[in-house]
């Protein structure tokens, strides 16, 4: 018997998106709210290690480890690795241009019919060129969907988006169609 979660479309987070979602301090709620089965490639786990934790007053920022294990234990995030020759073949081929986590994510998405969440320009370009059937999402799209589907209060959303900037040093590019939404949402305090 398959669970509800297993019937949802598989979405692979790359390290960039995983860090950004973790930086919101709401990753658990995000993964529970969005209608996807979330996973990361095992190589991503070693790349997404920590985010900043702002210090008190004038103190320099500290670091908070990205706790993938507890998300996996809670059944919210699967860890996947290439298993077949074809998956390994594409993993190696993507690694000519991409880093290991990005390459493994792309190869797994190709062979397991998954979508990919990445903000990386090169990863998106490679996927569009070599595997146009793979749907690509971004951090801003995930957080936009979370705010809508989760009915997130504007001040909570604003703080989450500001945390992405301060803790993960990330802002969507100005070319992102949701950048205006992001900037406006940040203003709500």
């Amino acid at each position, binding site marked *: 018997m398959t669970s509800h979660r297993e019937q949802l479309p598989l979405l692979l987070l790359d390290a960039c998106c995983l860090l950004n979602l973790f930086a919101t301090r709401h990753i658990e709620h995000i993964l529970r709210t969005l209608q996807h089965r979330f996973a990361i490639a095992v190589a991503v786990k070693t790349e997404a290690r920590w985010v900043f934790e702002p210090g008190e007053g004038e103190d320099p920022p500290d670091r908070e480890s990205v706790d993938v294990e507890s998300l996996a234990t809670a059944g919210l995030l699967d860890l996947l690795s290439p298993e077949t020759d074809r998956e390994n073949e594409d993993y190696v081929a993507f690694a000519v241009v*991409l880093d290991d986590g990005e390459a493994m994510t792309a190869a797994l998405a190709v062979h397991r019919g998954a979508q990919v969440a990445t903000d990386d320009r090169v990863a998106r370009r490679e996927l569009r060129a070599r595997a146009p059937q793979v749907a690509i999402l971004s951090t801003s799209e995930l957080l936009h969907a979370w705010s809508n589907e989760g009915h997130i209060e504007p001040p909570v959303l604003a703080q989450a988006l500001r945390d992405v900037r301060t803790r993960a040093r990330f802002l969507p590019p100005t070319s992102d169609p949701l950048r205006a939404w992001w900037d406006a949402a940040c203003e709500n305090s």
Partner: protein
Amino acid sequence: MTDHDSDELGTRDTAGLLDVLRRIDPRALGQRLQEARKARGRTQQEAADQLDAARTTIVAIEKGERPIRPSELVRLAAFYGRTLGEFVRDGQPVEAFAVQLRASLAPGPDSATEQQLAECTLEFQLLCEDYLELERLTGSTLPRRYPPQYPSTGPNPELAGEDVAVSERNRLGLGDGPLLNLRELLENDVGLRVFVLDLAPKVSAMFAYTEQLGGCVAVNRKHPADRRRMSLAHEFGHFLSKRYTPEVAFLGRVRRRPDLERFADAFARAFLLPATGLQRRFHELQRSRDGGLPTPADLCMLAHFYFVSVEGLAVRLEELRLLPTGTWDRLKNAGFRVREAQALLGLPAHPEEEPQLPLRYQYLAVEAYQRGELSEGRFARYLRADRIEARRIAASLVTRPEMDDEGAVRALPLDLSGALA
């Protein structure tokens, strides 16, 4: 999941990727695998065991005679603790110098040191290759101002080192003052690639040269800053006289130093502590002491002025006969403690930490990233940083403080990837 399942999903749209794999030169790949195996201290048999294969399979793969299967490459990369990208990277392969560097050691060091050397020579080579790759991606080559090689042989290597130091100071328009920015000078005005790496404790620096890369130096990050500067100047001397001979320089390993090393040592002292400037300042000190010899405190301040160790300064003053021979030994035997003396004098410390990578290298990485030539993961790999640290470095390099008309300071973003109008 079965291969059949994956074929249905993947074959149709990723065929182009197979061409990518076929373009990888098996010899270059085999060489990289061998280097990585040695750096990890693994035998061919241990590598073969990982693949459930015979040792001869590894031999053939490393010689480029047997193509490696993707699944084998994935397993070996993990076994050697390296990323896949290091083995299948795009771009022209660079003439490997790690092997020559290690071969330059005679007699061979102990096995622990040999293992450390294998690791750090490989990292040195990879960094130099990365530097070249960044230049290729951004279309920016490192300008070289290399002089012809100076002769280092002759009856007196010390005198030769002194002469070459004067010539180089003149060539580079340096006058006879202190060189506080030695690394930047050698990177920007000469065109050397200078890295500050964690080397084996006994190794002070390494030097290699290839036509593609030019002169490359790695200095030991674990050594004090004044020691690192002397090591860097030593390797510059080596480059000026025997650039085609790679070198791993050890601390006090050889009792009777060969002529080339004596030359490079003398060059380093004379380059950092030029005779004319040092004599002038020393005589000024003497005059302030009514003609007497300066005090240990004077030595500390003079060493600080030139950003060299007190020992290095004292030896140089003895060499120039400004101090009696054996002065440093007598000071040391009398229990003179340099750090305590410096603290008592309240001398502001020179920065001990310096970036592992040349600043130009970092800027090229940011430029390539901004242009969309590097993914974020690869950008972080080039910077030898994790993702968040790489984002922080990128942000710090592409913003600059600017004061507006109201006197408020703001951070303005810089676009490093666009050409100036």
